[in-house]
């Protein structure tokens, strides 16, 4: 278990540090790169939590697609090295965030969580690690939500196109 603990704490430090970097550094491009680090660290957490499939998806979609999209977007900003400026809400935002953190920590620590019974832990680990169960659930119990999400993605794609297409007379 030591290895797991060491990995966990290491990942925690990396993730929190990189996340702080995302919201604090001035250079927007570095922020984007630090965000990729956060994504990868979260993927690592997923592995630790025996959700291998999610870890792969995290790397593919977040670290791959979304991060790249964001990097493209960063290219828009005029002054990238000084693009990530704070606004005037730093203090209230920090206070709100700190208060929320306190509440969340208090709840997490105070709640009596119901652990998985020892007898079933093996079984649960097997099911969670493999992707077969997930695939089965997505096309059976959650089929409707699955279809809805697919429509949502289609709609989002069309919406993004419509937003970016420009006015007809300007289109080539």
């Amino acid at each position: 278990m030591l290895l797991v603990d060491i990995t966990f704490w290491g990942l925690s430090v990396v993730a929190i540090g990189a996340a702080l970097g995302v919201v604090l550094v001035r250079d927007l491009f570095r922020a984007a790169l630090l965000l990729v680090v956060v994504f990868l660290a979260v993927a690592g957490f997923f592995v630790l939590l025996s959700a291998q499939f999610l870890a792969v998806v995290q790397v593919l979609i977040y670290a791959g697609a979304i991060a790249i999209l964001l990097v493209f977007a960063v290219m828009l900003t005029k002054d990238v090295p000084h693009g990530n400026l704070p606004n005037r809400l730093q203090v209230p935002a920090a206070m709100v965030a700190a208060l929320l953190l306190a509440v969340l920590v208090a709840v997490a620590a105070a709640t009596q969580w119901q652990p998985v019974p020892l007898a079933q832990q093996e079984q649960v680990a097997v099911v969670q690690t493999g992707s077969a169960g997930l695939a089965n659930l997505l096309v059976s119990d959650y089929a409707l939500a699955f279809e809805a999400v697919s429509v949502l993605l289609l709609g989002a794609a069309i919406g993004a196109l419509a937003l970016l297409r420009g006015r007809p007379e300007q289109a080539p």
Partner: protein
Amino acid sequence: MISESFIWAILLLPLASFVVIALVIRPFLDRASALSGRVLIGCLTVALALSLWTLAATAGGAVPDFQPHPWLDVGQATVALGLLVDPITAIMLVVVTGVSLMVQIYSQGYMRGDPSYSRYFAYMSLFTGAMIGLVLSSNIVQLYVFWELVGVASYLLIGFWHHRPAAAAAAKKAFIITRIGDVGFLLAILYLFSQADRFAAAGLDPFHIPDIWQAAQPLATGGAVLGGAALTWVLLGIFAGAAGKSGQFPLHAWLPDAMEGPTPVSALIHAATMVAAGVFLVARFYPLFLASPNAMTVVALIGAFTAFMAATMGLVMNDIKRVLAYSTISQLGYMMAALGVGAYGPAIFHLFTHAFFKALLFLGAGSVNHAAGTFNMRYMGGLRRFMPWTYALTLIGGLSLVGIFPLSGFWSKDEILAAAWQGGGSVEMWVSRLTLGLLLAGVLLTAFYTWRLLHLTFHGEFRGGGEREQSDLAASAPPAAAEVPQHHGAAPAGNHPSGVHLAESPWVMVLPMAALGVAAVAAGFVANPQWVQRLVIFPAHWLTDFLDAGLEHGLGAAAEAVHPIVPKFSLEVALASTAAALVGIGVAMLLYRSRASEAIRDPLERMGPVHRLLSQRYYVDALYEGILVRRVFYRAVAGALDWVDRFLVDGLVNLVGCSVRGVGRGAALFQNGQVQWYGVMIAIGSLLILAGYLVLG
């Protein structure tokens, strides 16, 4: 038998005329406004023919019983529309259509050239239709609707020349004062409505008038559906409405002011028909009044007092129409007093004759105004040489009003006095005797002011007419102190201000007066005294017996218990009243004879404070306007309400407004368009909700 549709036609013809004039002629054919008068006259001619036929059929013994037509269902009660044709209705129909027809013909001459000619006839149509509906109604709610419609038409016609402030004020005063009485009437109706289930238990309809008559009669099980103190209060409510309409004592102040309307309006509405509607209303519910001696006493005393008091005020007025207005109030008092002492037939008989001779007098006053250009008798005089027809006809009307032997007023007034003399009604004897005394005094006063009116108007030398009145007013020295308050700003009345052209009025005005004159002479003989067995087609005492028969039919089985008085002709009473009348005329002759030529000063002014009291109308108007209206209403009630409105209501409203605006201003600070500011707010909100959950559970 009488066909119901013909009766409806009597009601609907004038209303149709109103619709045609108001919606077709006035907007589209204003060039041909002369048409409007002819439309109404045509409708009224047919209506009069139908009314006469109805009267003939009713007199022939027909007792029509039309089924009411259900209109509204209100809980237990059903408001129905229907026609009630009994002798009093038949007589009223003839009076209304007949006088209205004459007045409309007269109006063609009197109103010629008025810019609102067709509006005048539209209002007149509305009035005539409403008045006919009033006398025909078989349902008390329906009656009330027409009652108010008549009031509206009266308001519109008094204020016909609304550009004159005095006319507008008079219209308002008339409307408000009559409305005060109508509150009583409405309360009576509401009481009946509240008793709907008790009526229903007895198989009666609380709004159907014959059923209301039955409700007051004793039941086989003892007691009545409507009896005791409740009955008295209901009757006093009805009488309050009647007193308002008929200008009885505390509510009489509007009628003299109503003379601001055109003279034919005064003749039709404020002499012959609408003001008589109050008398009609009491007569309509007479079976109920018979069951309540207390209410009868009130009616008798108020009627007699009004008859006397109004006559005294008529003594000193200088405006010919105002003299006639007080005379009308006084004569309506006679009718009320007659009803009060139990003389049902004589009261309606007097209404019948009074309608003719008083309308005649008013039309005569209009004719005089046509020539002299003023209504002020101080500036008339000597007109008999210029307008012999008007003089002769006015003389007939005046003597009839006084009650000189063969004229109609003699017969009807005499019946009232004889009834009071005999007593025997449900009131106590002293009430009858007191009534008789007041009425006899009234006869004397009536004779005096009538002769004074005739003398000042027609005898002596002409004193300048409207032109001189104008120049006297322009000299801004009021010729007499009593003059100013009478005239509310001293505007010369009439639509022919101050133009003097001394000549007889056109035939279109004289002919209707002549017709009314014939009626004023002959109308008395429809109830000829008992010793005449048969006069042409009228049997002895026809009209009164006819009316009493209708009343007994309405009472049904209970007719044995209560009886209206059928007065016997009494030579003593006739001699006494004739003597009083002759004394009155004689005194007037003596007082005014010597001052035939230049008497601007009235000899009555020598009475000093009495004259002042009378010409100030007992300060009743001053009491109403100065104290009740100005002090109590304007200052106390309206002032308090104004304060409440300004400080409490407005304050609350302003407080609400200010606080909303303040909150809005505050809230607008948050609405700064910064998405992230909103984000912070959302986060704080979620935190608060979370905290709430954590703390509370």
